[in-house]
């Protein structure tokens, strides 16, 4: 590896190193919760390796435990991952010229953390060579991905040994709220979250988690609608 590539790789590792604090416990928790849901170690690992997206894994697991229909489970969990379309769009101008094999591999590793670190880097240093950008991207993956798999495994092995007094049932709600809360930085985001909560609670009567899907659609429309209204008001005020 040439020195500039090695430097880019190292920058990537350093940029995503802080995420370790979140990724490790989150994967550990998934392993534990999935084991308590009746999955054996092999299934937990297959889950974490094939999906490799924490929030949607927890969402799918919860709906599977409620025995929701397959289509509802898939629609809801995939919707959780739809934000990654934006990641893919954002990475395409920088990494899209790589060979198909590299793009396949990078798509698999395109997670919240590698996206966050890479988009900051590529905005700061847009003129790097393609090789440096790829090296940086894989640098951001190195602290995260092996840890995700290892901590999932540790959680699965630990599994049911954790006593009930630790109220692990509530670790997932706390983690999700903690992920969401920092996103509530604009009025449309707050409104979308509020509609999501109210509509889900009002629609709990609907069968098999379909209430959540309807609520999510309403919430997304609320967020987007509020954003349009705010923009309009701002452009009027500016004239």
């Amino acid at each position, binding site marked *: 590896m040439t020195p500039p590539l090695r430097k880019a790789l190292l920058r990537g590792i350093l940029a995503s190193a802080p995420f370790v*604090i979140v990724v490790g*416990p989150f994967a550990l928790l998934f392993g534990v919760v999935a084991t308590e849901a009746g999955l054996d170690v092999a299934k937990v690992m*297959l889950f974490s390796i*094939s*999906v490799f997206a924490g*929030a949607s894994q927890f*969402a*799918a*697991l*919860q709906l*599977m*435990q409620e*025995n929701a229909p*397959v289509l509802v489970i*898939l629609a809801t969990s*995939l919707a*959780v991952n739809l*934000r*990654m*379309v*934006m*990641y*893919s*769009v954002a990475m395409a101008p920088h*990494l*899209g010229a790589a060979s198909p094999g590299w*793009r*396949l591999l990078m*798509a*698999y590793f*395109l997670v919240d953390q590698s996206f966050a670190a890479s988009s900051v880097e590529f905005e700061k240093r847009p003129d790097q060579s393609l090789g440096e950008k790829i090296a940086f991207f894989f640098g951001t993956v190195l602290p995260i991905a092996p840890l995700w798999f290892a901590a999932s495994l540790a959680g699965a092995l630990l599994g049911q040994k954790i006593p009930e007094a630790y*109220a692990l*049932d*509530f670790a997932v*709600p*706390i*983690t*999700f*709220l*903690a*992920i*969401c*809360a*920092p996103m*509530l*930085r604009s009025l*449309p985001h707050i409104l*979308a*979250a509020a509609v*999501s909560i109210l509509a*889900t*609670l009002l629609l*709990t009567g609907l069968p098999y988690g379909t209430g*959540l899907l309807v*609520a999510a*659609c309403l*919430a997304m429309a*609320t*967020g*987007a609608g509020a954003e349009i209204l705010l923009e309009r008001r701002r452009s009027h005020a500016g004239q």
Partner: protein
Amino acid sequence: MPVSDALFWAVVPALGLGTFLIRFSFLGLLGARPLPAGLRRALRYTAVAILPGLVAPAVLWPAATEGQTDPARLAAALVTLIAGIVTRSVIGAILAGGVTLYTLLWW
């Protein structure tokens, strides 16, 4: 309720493939092209539209207490939310919520 074998195999491979295709979409196939503004706008809200609704019933009616609202869990959820908004830190919010939950449950 434990997850059955059949359900696991019906969901997980499809979820894995679907998630990969979402990630691969523009980077792998469609290349560098702008998204329509409306779609872009809607996508910004996917996480806040789903995750709060997903946890709301578990916060108000936890399965662990057979659906009875539990002050400790409710308080922990509120503290997590507030700490996350104030500190803008995921870890900070988790710690605040966890400390609240265990303080109220164990004391």
